[in-house]
């Protein structure tokens, strides 16, 4: 090499994707991704969990001793072991549980294999995805807060990785990623609110998922339905053909039929074994399809009384529509019903079961029934007499009745007189049986809300209901709803679950004098948490198609439907990004000093009159030259410049001086030619 040429700097940069991940980044990744995935270990099979933990442990060791990382062959063996492990415990890998088990194993293996920069993105994205899968299992606030922290960390790993040199200060990185996430929040909100929601799933895997679901069951104990009613979860959705939506007081969705009682609990008892009797129907058939949410029951809820039945379902002699493979999955079925019907004669078995009495029927119950029997000429009149009784006596309809221990029906009828539909239905049924009329309890749902846009009917768990059926000769089984006699408004419109929640959440009165301050604070805090949790459930977890259209109406976007929502979402998101850009552009810019800007304006005005400031001229020299060339401007130029020099270089920088200078410059408009020449 000839002398005089300098050797070039030998910095052959290896692309970041092929560089080794620095330990700092590796540790952050292992911790964060391990945490995002590790939360699954709480509900995964022990062996799958153990495999994952081993992988993470091995990887952590290897941060400081890279020698123990497995080679290609060992890695292959480990992969096979992991897959075998998953398949042997989750034979069908396609379900939610199996999928999560497979993903967890894969994350473990990927962690072990991670060495180079390009793995960083794969792992961070896997971490994001695993966080999303967590929400399929738990949806509580603590998890959300933890997820946010993990999110800040994972984003920070990306932020740090995209610098030229890693920063040693993790807080600076978290601050950056946190501020990015805060800026993303409004966009998230816009998309969350506007993204159209679907009322039915995109695909059905047909796999039983083990999740805790609520629903009506085949026994009623005091408080079982009122407990159910407190849940605002959807039970099922109905689409009616040809807009044949029946009126609210005709929407009785039939579920289990309860025959047997011990005086406290009502159960379905042994299934009646006989052929289903024919029944007469009148009027027009109502056709509809139902999308039933996952339930642990076996009933397909149908309008009283079903006629055309869905596939794979059986109708029992007491008109329960049952499907046995229903467990824990969303199903959709079509049926038709007639609202007016007359069932036929009563079988001896049904008569026997419909008159069965528990052994705790008290004399005053028998007296009441005997009294009614004496007053009324027929069974039909007796039923009406009983309903009048419920209507006239001071019965109250409440979601929170007193707990009745000994003999619930007796206590309810004669003492507390406060109850929910289950109390009315069971006591009415018992009274009928005592009076000699075959009767049974039917559980199901009543009512439902029509979605003004989707056109379908949403039936929630809060619409759960119980009513009675009595057998009257000539009519057959007739539905009687004693709740309607007490609280007709319950049947006229649906319960508003939000109102109920507010009742529950109403602050109780504290005895401030007697309890310690800390106790009060703790109680207040609990109520605060409860309130947050309530709105969390109402507005975040319970944000459904119905709530969306409600909210859209509220903010005046109610005219948007389906796909239009997507357009609105894109448009508003774009607007928000534009706003963000503008904010970011004005922030962080050095503002030019108003005095300097004023001086520039002064120079600019003189330049237009042919006297431009030379680059080497300070204000004093420039001013002298201006006055020399244009003596007529002396009176204006001199005060401006002396003020300017005083403010910028002297001790005259006060607000009043600044204001005065700005005023002088504003009024400084030199004429085109010398005056008087």
């Amino acid at each position, binding site marked *: 090499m000839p002398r005089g040429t300098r050797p070039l700097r030998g910095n052959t940069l290896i692309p970041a994707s092929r560089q080794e991940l620095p330990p700092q980044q590796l540790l952050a990744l292992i911790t964060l991704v391990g945490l995002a995935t590790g939360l699954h270990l709480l509900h995964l099979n022990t062996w799958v969990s153990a495999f994952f933990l081993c992988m993470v442990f091995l990887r952590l060791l290897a941060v400081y001793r890279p020698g123990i990382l497995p080679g290609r062959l060992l890695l292959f063996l480990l992969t096979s072991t992991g897959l075998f492990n998953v398949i042997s415990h989750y034979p069908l890998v396609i379900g939610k549980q199996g999928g999560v088990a497979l993903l967890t194993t894969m994350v473990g293996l990927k962690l072990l294999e991670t060495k180079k920069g390009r793995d960083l993105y794969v792992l961070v994205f896997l971490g994001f995805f695993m966080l999303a899968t967590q929400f*399929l299992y738990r949806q509580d606030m603590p998890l959300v807060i933890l997820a946010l922290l993990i999110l800040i960390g994972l984003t920070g790993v990306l932020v740090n990785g995209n610098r030229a040199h890693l920063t040693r200060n993790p807080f600076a990185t978290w601050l950056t990623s946190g501020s990015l996430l805060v800026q993303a929040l409004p966009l998230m909100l816009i998309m969350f609110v506007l993204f159209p929601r679907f009322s039915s799933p995109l695909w059905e895997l047909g796999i039983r998922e083990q999740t805790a679901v609520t629903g009506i069951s085949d026994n009623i104990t005091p408080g079982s339905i009122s407990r159910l009613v407190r849940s605002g979860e959807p039970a099922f959705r109905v689409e009616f053909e040809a807009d044949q939506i029946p009126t609210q007081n005709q929407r009785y969705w039939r579920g289990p039929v309860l025959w047997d009682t011990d005086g406290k609990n009502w159960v379905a008892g042994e299934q009646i074994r006989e052929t289903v009797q024919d029944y007469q129907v009148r009027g027009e058939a109502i056709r509809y399809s139902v999308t039933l949410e996952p339930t642990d029951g076996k009933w397909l809820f149908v309008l009283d009384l079903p006629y055309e039945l869905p596939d794979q379902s059986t109708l029992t002699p007491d008109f329960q529509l049952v499907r046995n493979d229903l467990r824990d999955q969303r199903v959709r079925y079509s049926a038709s019903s007639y609202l007016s019907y007359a069932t036929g004669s009563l079988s001896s078995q049904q008569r026997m079961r419909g008159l069965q009495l528990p052994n705790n029927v008290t004399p005053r119950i028998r007296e009441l029934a005997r009294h009614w029997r004496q007053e009324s000429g027929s069974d039909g009149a007796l039923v009406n007499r009983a309903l009048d009784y419920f209507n006239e006596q001071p019965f109250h309809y409440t979601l929170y009745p007193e707990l009745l221990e000994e003999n619930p029906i007796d206590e309810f009828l004669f003492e507390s007189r406060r109850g929910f539909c289950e109390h009315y239905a069971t006591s009415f049924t018992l009274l009928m049986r005592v009076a000699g009329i075959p009767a049974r309890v039917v559980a199901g749902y009543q009512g439902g809300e029509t979605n003004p846009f989707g056109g379908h009917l949403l039936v929630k768990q809060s619409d759960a209901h119980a009513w009675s059926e009595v057998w009257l000769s000539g009519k057959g089984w007739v539905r009687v709803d004693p709740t309607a006699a007490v609280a007709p408004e319950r049947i006229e419109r649906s319960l508003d679950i939000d109102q109920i929640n507010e009742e529950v959440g109403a602050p109780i009165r504290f005895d401030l004098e007697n309890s310690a301050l800390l106790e009060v604070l703790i109680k207040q805090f609990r109520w605060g948490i409860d309130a947050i949790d309530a709105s969390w459930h109402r507005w975040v977890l319970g944000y459904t198609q119905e709530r969306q259209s409600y909210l859209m109406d509220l903010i005046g976007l109610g005219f948007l439907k389906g796909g239009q929502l997507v357009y609105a979402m894109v448009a508003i998101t774009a607007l928000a990004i534009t706003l963000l850009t503008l904010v970011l552009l004005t922030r962080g*810019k*050095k503002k030019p000093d108003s005095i300097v800007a004023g001086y520039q304006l002064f120079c600019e005005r003189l330049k237009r009159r042919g006297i431009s400031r030379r680059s080497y001229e300070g204000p004093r020299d420039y001013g002298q030259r201006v006055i020399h060339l244009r003596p007529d401007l002396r009176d204006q130029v001199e005060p401006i410049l002396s003020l300017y020099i005083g403010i910028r270089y002297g001790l005259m920088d006060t607000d009043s001086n600044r204001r005065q200078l700005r005023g002088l410059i504003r009024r400084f408009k030199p004429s085109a030619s010398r005056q008087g020449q």
Partner: protein
Amino acid sequence: MSEYLLRRFRSVSRPDSRGKTLIASRQIYILPTAQGYAFGLMLIAMLLGAINYASNLGFLLTFLLAGLGLVSMVHTWRNLLGLELSPAPIEPVFAGQRARYRINLQNHRLGPRPGLCVERRDSDPDLTDLEGVSRGTVSLAFRTGKRGEYPLPSFVLSTRYPLGLLRAWTHVRLEGNYLVYPAPGPSIPLTDSMDYTPSAKGDKGVGADDFIGLRQYRPGDSPRHLSWKALAREQDLQTKMFGGDRVERCWLDLDSLPGQLENRLSRLCRGVLDACDQQLEFGLKLPGNPIAPARGQKQRRRCLEALARFGETP
């Protein structure tokens, strides 16, 4: 053709009327990276899952991440916007060698601009992080072609900061030139071209032939010319003066060499280097542009620049 169109219509960051090169919004291009597309695919998968399981938290997370991607788009774009670039002079190199192009970056904003990258085809990229209101330097090494004076090469300034999901870039061409000397060819015998020109004034005291006397030592005098005898006589340090009417001076003449022009220039280049190494006084005879003989690095530079620029219209 498309290459041509791209070149023709590509928006390039150039110096403005005041000579400042500030990256303007219209010169910034932005597209997702491969990781960005992967991120998008993951979001779609998450969205489908959220729809299917009617998981509102799934929706929230998906939309938060989507928002994050969109916000990072603004930040990536803004990371380049308003950045000021200026070139540092490129040290001339010999044809075929790699030249190092240093680019000064200046951040006028209060916030930092991390992860700035300069790229150019067939040179390694260089990365730097700029703090708020600060300067930094990045450099590109690129292989030079033929000798001559060239405008500064264009390059791409890019960034993936903050998330690496998007890459914003701008094509930059800064004002300025750089020189490529001819590649040194085979050496030429310098003695052949030695020129002993008689001089009327003589070179008293700077010549090398005849001893003419002693003078007081001055710092910088060659030790070879020290009068050791005088020193031995315990006189002061004295320097022997030589004089004469001729100097060791050579002329490098383009016309004296046979062959093709570029080859001859290459050989002259070698000649300049050798002459400078041997501390000769040398001059360069190029048609229409003779350079008077002189010594030292400055002369070497002058001659090499003349060789590099030879034949170009001034």
